[in-house]
């Protein structure tokens, strides 16, 4: 077994163990277990960073090969989680970040055969703007998804007067979950806009690729409109709590569908 295979197995093992331990810690309210799970995730994330670094140093073209951008999305989601953990003390969101990181990492290995070929002269611009911003958006939406589900669940518990029993000592307040949603929308929508419209611009400046509407573009645009609505309601009208949480879940689901569709149907450039 080579270095990469070993590294991949170690990363999967750390993410999987972290996920299992974190889920167990939530149910048993065991803080020590929770800390262990998060530090395992940190270790996994470190190895994942090393793996990405090694891959790119060995073959810089891998970035435009599209063989591991699921891996980058997972890595990005975890990076955002660590940021939220640091800023908001929201370790609870590992309940979303860890399983997603595991799922995306495994998917990146499974989908290693899919290749996205782009014209070399536009690779940097395209990848930098389009893929980079979408990856960050997805990371933010993964956090929003976790925070949204948690908000809806605990909001219902508080409304139905099961509050204190259901929300153990370690569960953050509803306000914290709502803050994550707000950040995800404030950061995610401009990034998604940039990611989406940079690709449209690319079509305009690429003479070899005529622009044509297809299901992928329509789907992406539909997600953008939904996201725009959420951004407007949240920022302009001051929506809070349940409604933006539900909308964020829809935006995330739409983006996932769009991403999966994109991954499966994207054809190599001529």
């Amino acid at each position, binding site marked *: 077994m080579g270095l990469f295979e070993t590294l991949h197995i170690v990363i999967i093992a750390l993410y999987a163990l972290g996920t299992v331990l974190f889920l167990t810690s939530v149910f048993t*309210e065991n803080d020590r277990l929770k800390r262990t799970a998060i530090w395992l995730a940190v270790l996994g994330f470190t190895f994942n960073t090393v793996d990405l670094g090694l891959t790119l140093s060995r073959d810089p073209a891998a970035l435009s090969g599209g063989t591991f951008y699921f891996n980058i999305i997972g890595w990005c989601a975890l990076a955002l989680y660590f940021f939220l953990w640091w800023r908001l003390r929201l370790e609870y969101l590992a309940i979303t970040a860890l399983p997603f990181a595991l799922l995306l990492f495994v998917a990146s290995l499974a989908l290693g055969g899919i290749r996205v070929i782009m014209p070399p002269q536009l690779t940097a611009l395209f990848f930098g703007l389009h893929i980079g911003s979408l990856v960050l958006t997805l990371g933010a939406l993964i956090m929003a998804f976790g925070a949204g589900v948690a908000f809806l669940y*605990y909001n219902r518990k*508080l*409304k139905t*007067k099961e*509050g*204190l*029993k259901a*929300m153990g*000592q370690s*569960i*953050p*307040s*509803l*306000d*914290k979950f709502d803050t994550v949603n707000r950040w995800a929308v404030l950061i995610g929508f401009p990034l998604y806009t940039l990611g989406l419209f940079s690709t449209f611009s690319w079509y305009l400046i690429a003479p070899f690729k005529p622009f044509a509407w297809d299901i992928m573009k329509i789907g992406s645009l539909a997600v953008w409109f939904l996201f725009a609505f959420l951004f407007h309601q949240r920022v302009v*009208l*001051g*929506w*809070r*709590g*349940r*409604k933006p949480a539900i909308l964020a879940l829809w935006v995330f689901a739409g983006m996932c569908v769009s991403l999966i569709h994109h991954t499966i149907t994207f054809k190599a450039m001529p």
Partner: protein
Amino acid sequence: MNKQIILIGLNHRTAGVDVREKFALTDIENFEQGLMAHCPVQECLALSTCNRVEIVAVAKKIPVPAVMDAVAEYWAMACGGSVELLTENIYRYADLEAVRHIFSVASSLDSMVMGEPQILGQLKDAYRSAVDKGTAKTIVNRLLHKSFSVAKRIRTETAIASSAVSISYAAVELARKIFGDLKPTRAMLVGAGEMAELAATHLLRNGVKEIIIANRTLSRAKELAESLGGEPIQIEAMPDRLHEVDIVISSTGSPVAVIKAKDVKAVLRKRKNKPMFFIDIAVPRDIDPDVNALDNVYLYDIDDLKEVVDENMAQRQGEATKARAVVDLETETFGNWLNSLNIQPTIVDLVGKSEDVAMRELAKTLKKIGPVDERTHNALERLVLSIAHKSLHEPICFLKRRTQEEGSAERFIDLARRIFNLDEESVPKNAHLDRKSATCAPEDIEQYIEVSKKEQ
């Protein structure tokens, strides 16, 4: 054990408030000193709170009931009450039972509200005063320090103190679950009922920034505002100020609802949907129940809060089982330490005797080799003492281990004292006629060693 720990006391379970009042100790320091002077105890500590009065004492090995009776008599005399009345209401514990009880008290397992934190502070105060007056010595010191660490361990390892068990505290906990940090929040008190005042006090103590007190009688609102540090307003002005606050505690005693859902809807628009928490303590209710159906609004009435408290009480009972297991474990550990105290005199005697022998042998050797300089003399002295100490290391460790075993301490200590003849008992000449005399001179031992070497 050469010394025994005794504990006598009364609490909310064994005595009514009238009896507790009668036997409460107001001047604890003088009481402790008087107890040391009048009773056969070497150490003591008294704890007197509204729910319990307890006296812990350490006495030499004399009949425990006699010591307890003496302490109870002095206690009754100090309070000017009858001994009969006191003895009818007290509980008595000795040795490990007393230790277990003190650990339970410190961990608030014996409190009226299980898990309440005040008792630990009261016990610390009692201990400080006993230390100041010199009535707490080796055993009481260790016992109290251990009880503090047991209490801390129980708070850390169990959830016995983590849930709210009073209406007002439950309201604070719920507010925390909604807003997280309470520092930027503002509250409003609608009406000035006693329980609402208590809830407001709790909220302010937990960081709420500001409080507005709305009441029908402005003078009462002002009075309360002064004591709480808030802003008094007439109740008629309440709807116009509602959008400024995050938490509303209502207890007006009005026969109809004073806050309606449609009013709150308008308030929410003004607040840009910032969440609101309504606590309705009034019966009949002050706040329209439909308020709870609005997004970002949470309404809890007195029954909801009571339910929360009852659930938490049940949870604490469950945690108490875990806590008692910790107490049992720590009591056993403390018992081992008490047992190890019995071995101290034996160790001292053993080391003393060994050093004696070493120094005598050194003196003999120095006589033989003639005068030596001081440096050599000191080096030789260090050498023989070091040999004496090191040769005793294993036997002492063995004895210490044996004292950790239930019921075997006395036997091994006795055996060690006899083996090393620490009590300098003279053995009769005709003892053990069927065997070789047990007493022998050092020369005999040297001869025996020589023969053994040759045989090998």
